[in-house]
């Protein structure tokens, strides 16, 4: 099993450390030249506008979108979730638009609105959740389904092999969301 981590900008090393702890091989995707076959893709937190621009400039946008459309398992956190969303309520831009969800960018406001909490996630149990200038999902459409909510807002979603969280599992010590993603990959490989 090999997981590619989008390493254009943001907290990609934090995901790499989680995968190291799980003993799962991974590599960094920085430009088209570094793209290799993989069994799963992680879209990390960071700034979605920065990543969105670099995805296009580096020629990575279409190859990655096609891989996701064709069922490559993908795990997206925070800005990554914005990249997957079909629609952004408070922004005209959209990126991969492969997941049938509408998100709100910076939904909790500026940095003073960032927070940490604990809440249950479907199929996992109660876990720590760190929200940094985070989005949330306003609504799920099509076959996307809700995995977790906090204060009535949707913060974790799944559609087929796509998994998205508004929070940052990679900023906690808890490996369970990464394990959950590894299970999606294993199931997909069978």
């Amino acid at each position, binding site marked *: 099993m090999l997981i590619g981590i989008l390493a254009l900008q943001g907290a990609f090393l934090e995901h790499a450390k989680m995968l190291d702890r799980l003993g799962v091989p991974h590599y960094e995707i920085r430009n088209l030249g570094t793209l290799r076959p993989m069994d799963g893709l992680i879209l990390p937190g*960071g700034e979605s506008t920065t990543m969105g621009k670099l995805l296009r400039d580096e020629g990575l946008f279409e190859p990655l979108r096609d891989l996701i459309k064709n069922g490559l398992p993908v795990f997206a956190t925070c800005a990554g979730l914005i990249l997957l969303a079909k629609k952004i309520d408070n922004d005209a831009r959209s990126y991969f638009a492969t997941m049938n969800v509408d998100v709100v960018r910076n939904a909790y406001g500026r940095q003073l609105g960032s927070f940490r909490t604990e809440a249950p996630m479907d199929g996992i149990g109660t876990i720590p959740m760190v929200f940094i200038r985070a989005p949330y999902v306003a609504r799920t459409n099509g076959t996307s389904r809700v995995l977790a909510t906090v204060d009535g807002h949707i913060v974790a979603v799944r559609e087929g092999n796509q998994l998205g969280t508004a929070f940052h599992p990679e900023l906690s010590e808890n490996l369970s969301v990464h394990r959950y993603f590894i299970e999606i990959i294993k199931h997909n490989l069978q």
Partner: protein
Amino acid sequence: MQNDRYELNKQLAQMLKGGVIMDVTTAEQAKIAEAAGACAVMALERIPADIRAAGGVSRMSDPKLIKEIQAAVSIPVMAKVRIGHFVEAQILEALEIDYIDESEVLSPADDKYHIDKTKFNVPFVCGCRDLGEALRRIQEGASMLRTKGEPGTGDIVQAVRHIRMIESEIRRLSSMREDELYQAAKEWMVPYELVKKVHDAGRLPVVNFAAGGVATPADAALMMQLGAEGVFVGSGIFKSGDPAKRAAAIVKAVTNYHDPKILAAISEDLGDAMVGINEGEIDILMAERGK
């Protein structure tokens, strides 16, 4: 300040890693910076090169300007306060700024004390030239660091000196015997616990960016290869011939800092770089402010 809040503030800096934070003086420049791929903008009235040229006392920006820039972009907005000026910091916190830079670029308000940053909920980034300064700022509550470099010069030499100093001091600290750490804490004028933490981890406990004198994609990549986790660009962009193009090139250089072929391609035909001043030609060394 709650412990959670400090962690969250350090974590915002983690999200900025691998990115470029650009100085902007108008909402329009902020939009150019965001479109070029900046991961945050620093809102200020004058960029360092112009502060240097104008002389006199430089202060926190007009809140009106900061609000205009906040309204113009969706990326984090930072702003500067004078060293030690905790009321300017209170004002920026009231504006819900995403990060405060307690900055030697502005005229210091206090020649002895820095702001007690633990009293604030918004995060602070501070400049440093060596490990002692870095750890003293962390002890005061900074949740992100940057090299001081020499702002507004377009001369990278000081930023290189500072990142090399910090990195080499961390390596030296990591190799010390545990009983040597007490003396190290004394020399750096910081608590033993903080020294021990860096000794054990082999790195600073907060994100460290490069700043001060970055003018080209090569400068940015140099700082990344020397150990910076991201780059601030001040005068280098909007004092150059083609700001949008240069800004985008520096963003790409920070992502692809170890790929010389890509660096060669993006360095091509960028127009004039900012003219720059050598460190020997300037009267005020801003990096000397706030130790």
